[in-house]
């Protein structure tokens, strides 16, 4: 290995792309120690920070795309370094400036998002097809709530049960809600983390203009990723709405006595805190309150829960990328769930849904454990009118 010389130009590129936080890093290594990747392979987060400090970043490395943005490192970093922002800045340098090469799977998803407004590459006109037979109206000025299901429940044949369950619950309760329509585009949270800043800006502007022009005041979302970007990133771009995650909304309906759950669900349900609901946004209690309100349901906790919850592996754009067997966090989670005696994994995020479903399948455990979104369980437990 040849002797290293600091290359400030590379550092400057990363700093300008949003990597300023890297200056604070004092190389303690806590990030590496806590990063879930080190349960399955070696991923030295600290070294990436230091390489960036000296301009020695290998922009062509796989590791540029490894981070799942779960936030475990940011949460504990003693210097308060926004490590995810640094990862995003390095990716932005590759994706926008073409310094390196973007992995194929990600490139295709990015193309789809930029082209047709969703990562699956499906037709925009079909965005609301999941609701065809369900009597769901389109949001108009004066409608109380906008329901924004996320691209995955909208288009994925399995995950659309999340959107359908939610609509069913709303319909039964007579909630005044509507869908924004087929002009909606992906919220952009994950593609931004993957470094496609311009794509994100364009998606956000599209959605903000759409919502604002229709007079949207309150948005209920199924995905913690949509939650995160609508709540934390859209306001500075002009999009100021009240943002509620479906589990928070259900919890408040239960508290107000409007949502009655009387059908017994005799299951041992283990709840997996989604990174973007829990660590990133501090929502831990409401999903649990909802599950605990269901008669017959025994709520179990993972050994590492709440702030310490293990990521499913879907954030940061990695939901669109392939993770080799043996390196999948969701496999570990399924094993943990089985060890705890659970027969159901309750999720509150479409990415978790996809990853756990795949893990259960590939581990051959479909007979012993199933994956259900909280909205599905609630829909099942609802009192018949």
């Amino acid at each position, binding site marked *: 290995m040849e002797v290293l010389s600091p290359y400030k130009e590379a550092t400057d590129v990363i700093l300008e792309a949003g990597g300023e936080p890297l200056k604070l890093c004092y*190389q303690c290594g*806590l990030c*590496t*120690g806590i990063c879930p990747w080190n349960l399955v392979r070696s991923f030295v987060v600290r*070294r990436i920070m230091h390489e960036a400090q000296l301009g020695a970043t290998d922009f062509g490395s796989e590791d540029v795309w490894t981070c799942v943005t779960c936030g475990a490192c940011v949460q504990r970093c*003693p*210097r308060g370094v926004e490590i995810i922002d640094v990862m995003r800045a390095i990716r932005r340098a590759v994706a926008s400036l073409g310094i390196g090469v973007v992995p194929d799977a990600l490139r295709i998803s990015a193309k789809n998002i930029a082209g047709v407004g969703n990562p699956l590459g499906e037709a925009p006109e079909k965005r609301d097809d999941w609701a065809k037979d369900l009597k769901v109206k389109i949001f108009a000025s004066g409608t109380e709530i906008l329901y924004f299901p996320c691209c995955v429940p909208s288009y994925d044949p399995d995950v659309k049960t999340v959107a359908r369950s939610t609509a069913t619950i709303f319909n039964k309760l007579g909630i005044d809600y509507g869908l924004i329509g087929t002009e909606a585009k992906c919220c952009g949270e994950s593609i931004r983390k993957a470094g496609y800043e311009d794509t994100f800006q364009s998606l956000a502007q599209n959605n903000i203009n759409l919502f604002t022009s229709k007079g949207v005041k309150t948005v209920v979302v199924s995905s913690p990723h949509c939650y995160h970007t609508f709540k934390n990133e859209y306001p500075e771009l002009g999009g100021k709405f009240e943002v509620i995650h479906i589990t928070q909304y259900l919890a408040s309906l239960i508290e107000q006595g409007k949502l009655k759950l009387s059908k017994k669900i005799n299951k041992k349900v283990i709840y997996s805190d989604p990174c973007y609901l829990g660590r990133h946004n501090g929502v831990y209690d409401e999903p649990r309150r909802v599950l605990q309100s269901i008669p017959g349901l025994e709520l179990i906790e993972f050994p590492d829960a709440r702030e310490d919850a293990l990521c499913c592996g879907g954030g940061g754009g990695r939901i669109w990328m392939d993770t080799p067997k043996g390196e999948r966090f969701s496999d570990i989670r399924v094993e943990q769930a089985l060890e705890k005696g659970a027969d159901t994994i309750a999720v509150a995020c479409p990415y978790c849904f996809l990853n756990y479903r795949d893990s259960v399948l590939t581990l051959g455990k479909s007979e012993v454990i199933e994956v259900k979104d909280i909205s599905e369980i609630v829909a099942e437990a609802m009192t018949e009118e």
Partner: protein
Amino acid sequence: MEEIKIGVYVCHCGVNIAATVDVEEVARYAGTLSGVVLSRDYVFMCSDPGQGLIRKDIKEYDLNRVIVASCSPRLHELTFRRVCESAGLNRYLFEMVNIREQCSWTNEDKEANTEKAKALVDAAVRRVHYQEALEVKEAPYNTDTLIVGGGIAGIQAALEIANSEHKAYLVEREPSIGGHMIQLDKTFPTLDCSQCILTPKMSEVGSHPYIELLAYSEVEEVSGYVGNFKVRIRKKARHVDENKCTGCGVCMQKCPYTTDSEFEVGLAKRKAAYIPFPQAVPNVATVDPDICIYIKSEGKKCGACIKFCEAGAITAETLLHQTDEIIEVEVGSIILATGFSLMDPKLIPQYGYGEYENVITGLEFERIVSPTGPTGGKIQLKDGHEPESVAIVHCVGSRDKNYHEYCSRICCMYALKQAHYIKEELPNTDVYQLYIDMRSFGDGYEEFYERLCEEGVNFVRGKVAKVTDQAISDEEKEKLIVVAEDTLLGRMIRIPVDMVILCNAVEPQADAGGVASRFTVNQKATGFFLERHPKLDPVATPTEGVFVAGCCQSPKDIPDTVAQASAAAARILAMISKGRIILEAAVSVIDEEKCSGCKICLSLCPFSAISYDEEKGVCQINEALCKGCGVCAGACPSAAITARQFTNEEIVAQVEGVLV
């Protein structure tokens, strides 16, 4: 009226002012103003030649007003006041204009800054026409001193003062003095036995003719001002007659009731009737009313100590009827030496403190290793076995924005010391230091670090991510596993050990806020007490007469603590030697004829300097307590209060100077 003759001096302050203010122009302009007899610019006004200029001019030109346009008055107002005084001009006929912090340092626009400086000088020139000479008063300085806190800092300060044959009160809230230092086994880097070097000092304090030791006591209220403080101290009831108690310890032996020992950091129990440790000073027993069944049952149950106390120091009378004593003392100076506390590691659940019994703190380990401690000095796990391996984790809650951003300063060194304890007693036990940096900054410290390397301690650079008992291999079974990245290797490391010692953060005492307000000192953002200047005045506080020493000001080791204690004592001895305090004369005064007795001023005064005279029906200002803030003068509806040096005429004149 006397003809006003003003001398104006505009300072360059090297380039600090001259770089962004045209000082020659300001001086020239000042020379054109009414009343100004001479106007100069000079490179460093605060220097000897600069001061000499003023002195010479006052005499030669018969100046009766002096204006210096330079830095902040907080820096040199006193300097120049003294210069004027030495040349025979009353110090209150001097005015300082800040054209540095408030002008030259604010931006780079020389033209704008120069105009501003001219306006400020104009304001001062108009103002000084209305200034009056004020009489400087003095008050006597009480030669007694109060020292709060009986750890090594308080003990050192008390001895310094007492050895000069002046009286010191040493107030300590625990039953014995000694603080944290008496809990240690050895001290780095010399490995002196802590108790051996401290107990002679404690003993000296206990028997010193000039020290009044008030142990098991707390200060409740402080009033007054530098040189003349009144302090109210609560001497808590020990429920033992101190004068009769011989410290024989029989009560402790016979007492059937126990609770966690504070001295042993919860690792052992003590009795309801107890002496905290064998070398306690004062060596008298205390009965804990929260645990003593006799007291709680109002005399119906137990009473074993009464039966067995041969000296008759514990009786039904002392147990049931002895009350706290209130003692009022008058002192001239106060030293706060209240020490530190340690962060609860349960706040970082990933380290397993409270979950795994063999995860302990540094102080707990110090007690384990101490010959007088809970294991008689034997290094052992909770089940009595010897550890085969120990990990010492640095920076637990320190250097961490999530807890305390600062470095606790002492841990790197005591971590090395504790590694040495282990290697000395159990040479075959592996010791791992998990660190981010090795801070061995002091005299002999780096050599001590080298010594520990020679002793075969393993150093792994990496902040510990977690401590777990979840084994993933055979070697890890039944062990505690310390998980971190070895940053020097760039690899994850899992170290199986039997015992984990956490270097938890040094924190201010839990009641530091209450103590701070009681003594009118401030806290820094970290919670430690604020010194007057971090570099040049680390033991004084902005409150005159109140000093700080030791860890209550910031984390530090014993040498630095002792140095600060001696420094604070020296400052006080200097005041005592001078014997008098000069009172600031630019304070407020009430014209009793105009005062209507509405007491608005009294309710507003932040220094409690105003009192109401019932007989006269008017308010009066204590000139010694008054800081001249002017709040009362501003609020008085009868315009009965004059804020000396800040009269309406003076202020209006300044405003005119700036605006015109």
